[in-house]
């Protein structure tokens, strides 16, 4: 899969409380959750995401709560991928489980600027910053995790496994 999108850049330690404040967790409706996405951090996110669909961030993206509402609200908002210097463990796991592509690359996350146009090739593990003409090669994820992504998420992966 190859995507070509522009970026929104955030800083370090973007936590799940700013991604989706807990006061909105009284629903599991993904559209409603998306309507509050990043409300604690960036009031303009809803406008920005119409044009920019890759999030770039620093260290420890998604730290805090285990709420799957966080990656779910980001995915439903239309974000196609998140590239961060590092991810919190649970957020990373949740994103993979629901089929939201997450890429851990300190080098790329440091270099890429807000608004840059990127081309990301998930199968070959290549990020191209078209705006600044630079290419990053990503370390491939473990085979097991790639299997989950190929199935389109953990639920499908498990269903396929149970039907074997």
């Amino acid at each position, binding site marked *: 899969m190859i995507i070509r999108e522009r970026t929104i850049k955030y800083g370090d330690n973007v936590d799940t409380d700013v991604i989706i404040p807990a006061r909105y967790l009284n629903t599991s409706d993904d559209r409603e959750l998306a309507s509050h996405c990043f409300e604690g951090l960036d009031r303009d996110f809803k406008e920005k995401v119409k044009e920019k669909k890759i999030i770039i961030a620093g260290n*420890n993206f998604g730290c805090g709560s*285990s709420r799957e*509402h966080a990656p779910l609200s980001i995915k439903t908002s239309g974000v196609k991928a998140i590239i961060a210097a590092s991810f919190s463990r649970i957020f990373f796991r949740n994103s993979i489980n629901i089929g939201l592509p997450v890429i851990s690359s300190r080098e790329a996350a440091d270099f890429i600027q807000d608004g840059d146009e990127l081309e990301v090739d998930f199968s070959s593990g290549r990020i191209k910053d078209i705006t600044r003409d630079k290419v990053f090669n990503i370390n491939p994820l473990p085979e097991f995790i790639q299997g989950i992504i190929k199935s389109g998420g953990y639920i499908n992966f*498990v269903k396929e496994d149970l039907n074997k």
Partner: protein
Amino acid sequence: MDDKQKPQTIAQKILACHCGRDHVSEGEIINADVDIVLGNDITLPIAIEEFNKIGTGKVFDRDKIVVVPDHFAPNKDIKSAQQCKFMREFAREQDIKNYFEIGKMGIEHALLPELGLVLPGNLIVGADSHTCTYGALGAASTGVGSTDVAVAMATGKLWFMIPRTIKFMYSGDLRKWITGKDLILHTIGLIGVEGALYKSMEFSGSAVSKLSMDSRFTMSNMAIEAGGKFGIFEVDEITEEFLKFRSDGNYKIFRSDPDAEYEKIYNIDCSDIKLQVAAPHLPSNAKNAEDLKDINIDQVVIGSCTNGRMEDLKISAEILKGKKVDKNIRVIIIPATQNIYLEALKKGYIETFINSGCVVSTPTCGPCLGGYMGVLAEGERAVSTTNRNFVGRMGHPGSEVYLSGPAVAAASAIAGRIATPEEVI
């Protein structure tokens, strides 16, 4: 040395045992059998929807699923009521024994250990990041998302990557009023909010061998605030004493091999640690409470899965006894379970709190995550014994949370600003 002869950490041993092996290597991914799967009223509704998509119909073992409505329960609004109802109906349909309705319910991470549902050597997952609390009992226990819980409920299995371990050796005698909260805030301050990212944290040393179980639960609880996957204590006499009336002794104790390989070992002298406060907006902004005395506050919260246990209420009552809370602030005290509430009542703590001008609430996570029962307005500031001080955590994005243990929280309640017990007693 062949991997099979390599010494192992407690985390490796528990994970190996749960996939039917003697040894596992760091970085390896395994599919392991879980002992307990936990969900609450925020995370379980999504897990149930995902569970239904898998199509197994029934949960893998009705006795191994624990369901606790605690975050927005007693129901805070109509939507929360719908979520709780959805969860309650699922628990009934699946005949889940460990569903805890209002009246029996407590904050999940205080409730499960109290009832002996989580034991040493267990592999536990919960759709709540503070599931790492049970590491205090020598268990491998960690927070996961709703989809993970759906899979675990359907199959009894989940994938795990074998983590590396960082060891924390605490020595020295604790100063007066110091509890597990001060040790863990100091530790997170030392290593940062991603200092233990993906890692297992192992807490040991002469100082922790004297720590109460309540303080150990507090420390394991906040392992996640350093990015940790587990926060594990080895089982000792204090653990066994805690478990004596809570289990039939049918559990397996794992210990790290003496020569196990650690990514890093921190030696921390506790005699240097003073009362800690983590300033906004990261739990790693740990400072000495005595250096923050000019910080005025609007609210104090004493409670949560971090500090809503007996030890916390005892310390708070000791400080508040015969005193009045400052006229300009609100003080909310939340015993974490019904049993803790009742014991505090018998010991006279609740009377002390009410006479001092505090409100005492039924168990709920409520204000910790800005849900209800103490949400902050713009520009307001709280001292709280909870676990997170992120932007907007307790309410308005323009409000602030200072994290502390019970001693600073109770003293601050009297002073109306951040204070230490010596100033108010």
